């Protein structure tokens, strides 16, 4: 009998390292993610079920351990669990009317860290990332060059940059150039 072939899942940016001494680029570990849509009246039940309070103000996020809820729009959130927990089941257990789409493998993320992280990202992103306007915990959907991204500031000099996996080689390349510039 023939040996059974097993497919091995390959992370889009597996093995890549990049950046400069000013801005280090590290592919983020796999995580589970949902794109969550819900009206305001469903927010309390969903927050309780997910264990993280869905933020209602623009550009804000809420975190509980390794789970993060990012405000993307008035009725839209990106929920990320870095431990890979089943977010779909958690949302479904809320009993509240909502739409959740598992985008764990649609997205991948790059961690951009270092004193030049802002400059590296701003090489392709038009948002003002100064701490006054984009403080720790701030998040936003925006663009990096031709790619749509979701930015999430996890510390003063660290960003989690989410992008669609098919755009990730472009995003990583553009960030590498930006990180080089940030070192000069």
């Amino acid at each position: 009998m023939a040996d059974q072939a097993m497919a091995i899942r390959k992370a889009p940016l597996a093995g890549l390292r990049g950046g400069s001494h000013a801005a280090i680029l590290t592919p983020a570990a796999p995580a589970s993610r949902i794109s969550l849509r819900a009206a305001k009246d469903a927010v309390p039940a969903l927050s309780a079920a997910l264990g993280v309070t869905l933020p209602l103000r623009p550009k804000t996020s809420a975190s509980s351990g390794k789970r993060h809820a990012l405000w993307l729009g008035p009725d839209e959130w990106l929920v990320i669990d870095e431990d890979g927990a089943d977010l779909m089941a958690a949302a479904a257990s809320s009993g509240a009317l909502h739409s959740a789409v598992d985008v764990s493998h649609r997205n991948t993320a790059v961690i951009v860290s270092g004193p030049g992280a802002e400059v590296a990202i701003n090489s392709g992103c038009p948002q003002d990332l100064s701490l006054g306007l984009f403080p720790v915990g701030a998040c936003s959907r925006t663009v990096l060059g031709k790619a749509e991204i979701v930015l999430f500031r996890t510390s003063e000099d660290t960003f989690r940059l989410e992008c669609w996996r098919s755009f990730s080689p472009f995003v990583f390349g553009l960030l590498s150039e930006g990180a080089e510039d940030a070192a000069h």
Partner: protein
Amino acid sequence: MLLIYCPYCEEERSELEFRNAGDAHIARPTNIAEITDEEFEAYFFLRDNPKGVIFERWRHIHGCGRFFNAARDTVSDRFLTTYQAGEPKPDLNAQPKTSATLETYDEALEGAAQ
């Protein structure tokens, strides 16, 4: 870089995050199956294309994803105001005027013609 104030994000963002979505405040006829071809044409195809202030729909497609409305000067590309979808047309007299910009543009046209 042109900055557009998104009434849902409550801040100015780069135009790169936005898409134009055509004229605003166009009411879809409620009796659309009964209207004449001419009436349908007027509703569906005919637009004023004004030189000056236009009310448009815009979408913050690479931001919050929301459609909203804007009053924009088609000559200067200046955004006079933006407001949430569903709100009535705002009173633009309460907004700053753009005559200085228009005069500059007209002068530029005259200069080019000479």
